[in-house]
């Protein structure tokens, strides 16, 4: 599927370019905009951005590859990032990640058959006092148990479908 940058997004990028002294500063907001719309950032998207921004593909790619917050592969409608750093791990974070994978029949990092779920393990998200926790798309869910986490995901799924 070819990537097309919609006019509104293109305008956003052009506006961002005006905001900074260096064009390079506009790379992160532009990438985020695309990720928000598409869920991930494809190589094609980088090529299109490169043209719109007048920056080399390699330099945009440097930024893209540096940050783990950018998805370089497609993700499900719900991107579930389970923290497995120290505090969360001690409170069952790893098991939680495994459980969610099992429940939705999906390998870590892959997209579930119905296109709904992607589970990734991440490092500390700064909510250690509420361990274990997960981030679903932009939102934090804290003090989880395996059951509550599945419940939350089921509800969210319902919302997305509905």
């Amino acid at each position, binding site marked *: 599927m070819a990537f097309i940058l919609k006019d509104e997004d293109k305008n956003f990028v052009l506006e961002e370019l005006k905001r900074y002294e260096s064009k390079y500063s506009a790379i992160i907001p532009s990438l985020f905009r695309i990720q928000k719309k598409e869920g991930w950032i494809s*190589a094609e998207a*980088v090529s299109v951005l490169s043209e719109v921004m007048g920056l*080399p*593909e*390699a*330099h945009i*790619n*440097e930024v893209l*590859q*540096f940050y783990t917050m950018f998805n370089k592969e497609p993700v499900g409608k719900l991107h579930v990032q389970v923290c497995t750093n120290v505090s969360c791990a001690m409170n069952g974070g790893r098991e939680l990640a495994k459980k969610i994978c099992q429940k939705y029949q999906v390998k870590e990092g892959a997209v579930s058959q119905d296109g709904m779920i992607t589970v990734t393990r991440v490092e500390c998200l700064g909510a250690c006092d509420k361990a274990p926790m997960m981030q679903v798309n932009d939102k934090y869910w804290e003090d989880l148990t395996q059951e509550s986490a599945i419940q939350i995901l089921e509800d969210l799924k319902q919302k997305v479908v509905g």
Partner: protein
Amino acid sequence: MLKCNINGVDLEVPEGTKLIEAFLKAEQKIAHYCWHPGLSVAGVCRLCMCEIEGNPRLQIACNTEVQEGMVASNQSEKVKETVRWGMDFHLINHPLDCPICDQAGECGLQEQYMEYGQYTPSMAHAKVKKRKVVSLGSKVVLDSERCILCSRCVRFTDEVTKTHELGIFNRGDKSEIGTFHDKPLENKYAVNTVDICPVGALTSKEFRFKQRVWYLKDEKTVCPGCSTGCSVKVYHNQEGLFRVKPEYDAEVNEHWMCDEGRGVFDWVNRQNRQSYSVNAENMEKPSSSELKLILTAQQTVEEYESLFEYLKSSNKKVEVYYWKNNPDKFDDFDNLLIRGDKNPNTKGLLETAVKHDITLNPFSGFDGFESFEGDIWFILPENKAVYPLYEQYVEKALKLENNLTIFAVPKVKVDKTKKNISILPLKTYFEKDGHFLNFNGLKRQLKPGPLQVSSALALNEWVSFVKSDDFGDQVDLLSKRKSEGFRKKNEMTQTGGGL
């Protein structure tokens, strides 16, 4: 000018000079991987450490400007200790596979290791594995494990070619050099990245695994690839020529050269040459009173000089034809080095012709030559690849019935029974003394290396034969000269290295 003192040596340097340049000027050893005189300062390798009097902390010499009265040194134990540690960090993930690395023998890291290496590794963790053989287009291979992330290659594509293909992707110990989406690195200067890579991370597909560098000698000379005339070094041994690298020349090519120019040595190698003369045994001194001569702008000024002088002083009726390739592209220029005139000496030919009052008639084939009764001298260009009509003209020439002498660097397939045609092997730019005039008239001096084809002659030698009384003997001697017994392929070198 600023006065400073480097390792006890007093010197003066212009304002704005970096400390590292002062070290080099004072002929002091200082390690540097990321700094390169032709690129911007990155300051990432942390090896050029030095101590500046009055400054409690060590500084990197590549990013510090010399100040009036500065006293700096890199001799103290403190500096050495720091460099040792820096070195150790570089080696954490470096595979140290020098025995199979093409850079061995001319590697910055290897040299530094000999001096500062800890020898017994103190890392308990396994090294990070990375991509070992990445094909970066048709000319360059990347070994990510060997890369020390100095960023020279990235700065080269950003600052010199401005093609911006390379970048550093991922981060931490997963950082890797690469092109976006593994696109091939196909700019016309790509192999310069191989030259500036301080380690064996970038190697040249053409040269890889062909020779160990310590088996090679080098000769400083000039690239005959186009009218720019870059200063180069040609690397060779008894087996022939193996590679060409640029040589710093402030007036012409600075630190760089084009990739095409690196390939030109190939026609010098024996296996691609006309390596013996044909029908030269009973050759007689050219006696006809008429002479037609066809030449290109690929010979040296010295050759044109002796040739034109002879033509003027002999009482022959002479016509000189100038065979020009792609004249419509002569003025092309890519704003870096490459010029459309693929002859090294167009200016030299034109100026020498004017000096001797020789008219250069445009050459456009042999029509009308059939009825000509005199001698024809056909001097073929050595870089035949840039002459689109080369094969066509040679084929035509070999059918002529006239009294024809062909001077050739590349092989010419002639029917030996055709007694009217003789072929004499010609010397290449690598084998003769002399000079070219480049596009703006700058003198480009050649330096002769070892003769690859022993019976080859330069045109000025030919002229001296023609002028001498014992022409027959001279030519005879030439054809009987035994080749020097070139060594066969070194059985210890591989030719493989698959991708």
